[in-house]
């Protein structure tokens, strides 16, 4: 493999990996949230203990 | 009001176990695989990692005890010494003012052509009267595996040209002269 092809592969794989994982996390959150019937963001206590700054 | 009889408090644990039984087995299997992987890695690592290579000066010093045993040698390639013909590359490597002649079989990595590149070679000492830039020697190194050992120095290709002269200070104290590349 040439240098350029190697760099392209490395960057490509990295972005695919991070994007896939990000999507998985977000989707999983959405799915479970729906299962639990949490419709409105902010209606659960998890956000408060996750990030105190978001608590007005 | 909870009127559940006392013995039913046992139920949640029982139920949970039933639900998780299948999951538990797959996780158990994964754990076993992971432990096995760690054992293999550790074994591999212990065999190789502690003394990954000998520098040229040490390899020459330990020549008697090394005999024809396989080991890895590390040194910088003297650019003017490189000769290649029919799949065999001959060159000299230097480290700590000790020089070894190398006969390498196989295709060298791409970066081998970079002057004064440090390389790690896998092979063994072979007796034979040869000539190096440091004088005569009784052995040469027969190698069939070459790895380029990159340094942690990074420089812009726009600003710096590939230098044919040895790295600063690398050969300053050596009693021999290294010829400048003539080819």
């Amino acid at each position, binding site marked *: *493999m040439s*240098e350029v092809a*190697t*760099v392209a*592969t490395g*960057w490509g*794989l*990295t*972005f695919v990996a991070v*994007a896939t994982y*990000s*999507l998985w*996390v*977000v989707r*999983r*959150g*959405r799915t*479970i949230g729906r299962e*639990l019937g*949490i419709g409105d*963001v*902010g209606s*659960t206590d998890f*956000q408060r*203990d*996750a*990030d105190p*700054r*978001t608590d007005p | 009001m*909870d*009127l559940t009889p006392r013995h*039913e408090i046992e139920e*949640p644990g029982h*139920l*949970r176990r039933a639900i*998780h039984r299948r999951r538990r087995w797959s996780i158990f299997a994964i*754990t076993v695989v992971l432990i096995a992987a760690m054992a293999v*890695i550790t074994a*591999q*690592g212990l*065999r190789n*990692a*502690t003394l*990954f*290579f000998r520098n040229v000066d040490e390899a020459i010093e330990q020549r008697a005890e090394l005999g024809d045993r396989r080991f890895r040698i*590390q040194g910088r390639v003297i650019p003017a010494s490189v000769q290649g013909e029919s799949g065999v590359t001959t060159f000299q490597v230097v480290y700590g003012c000790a020089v070894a002649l190398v006969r390498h079989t196989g295709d*060298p*990595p*791409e*970066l081998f052509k970079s002057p004064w*590149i440090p390389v790690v070679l896998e092979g063994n000492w072979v007796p034979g009267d040869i000539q190096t830039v440091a004088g005569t020697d009784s052995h040469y190194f027969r190698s069939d595996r070459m790895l*380029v050992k*990159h340094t*942690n120095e990074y*420089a*812009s*290709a*726009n600003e*710096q040209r*590939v230098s044919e002269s040895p790295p600063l200070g690398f050969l300053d104290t050596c009693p021999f002269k290294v010829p400048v590349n003539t080819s």
Partner: protein
Amino acid sequence: MPGGTNSTEMTATPATRVLGISAVAATAPMILLGLAISPADVVQGEAVRMLYLHVPSIWVAYGSFVLTSFSSLLFLARSKRRPDGGRHYDRLAGSAAEIGVLFTAITLITGMLWGKVTWGTYWQWDARLTTTVLLFVTYLGYLALRRLPADPMVRGRRAAVMALISFINVPIVHYSVDWWRTLHQKASLSVGRRPEITGEMYWTLLYSVLTVTIIAAWLTVHRYRVIRLEELRDEENLEMLISSRRNEKTADGTGHGDTT
């Protein structure tokens, strides 16, 4: 890259949305700097561009594992005193470890590709590479342990102990290149030492570290919240199972069960 801007997302809050947008916004200059603006290396040529992923990834992985250990320590120390049993720390440890494993994997993959074009091999069992793959496998084991069904507090304590044991390897990985002879070069960036890297490359590398850190922070927060949701769901499922079981029992007599 992170989709932190979706308004229907369960795990987003205004703060993390800003973080998500920053992550996406910071990525564009990183690509530009890393793949176009920064120069090729005098020896390794274009292959040097792998450095801008490889080095930030392992730094972020180190940082994640530090967070995991710190949280695990707090979980062990404070679990009795906190109303939620310190499970906040347990969640933080778990989410950070997962992000750490992801970035360790990225470090290994980018490193192997780089190794192929510079060293001439994908893999060598030298001290750095061996300890790094051991780090990866150990934390993978940690994540597996977290999934073993058990009482949350028991599981949390087990995981915390394993996290603290696993962390021993982090300084070993980092200093392996100084302690042993390795094919791998010595650290590209280290505190208190003049970097042996030219200006543009140095700044590109630092910028990449910053960007990858923002991405990892965003991921960690969201993963934390998903773990919280998973816990809520597990608790709810358990409650439903208990009550449905009770209903079965009571159904024989009355036909209607108390569903609380």
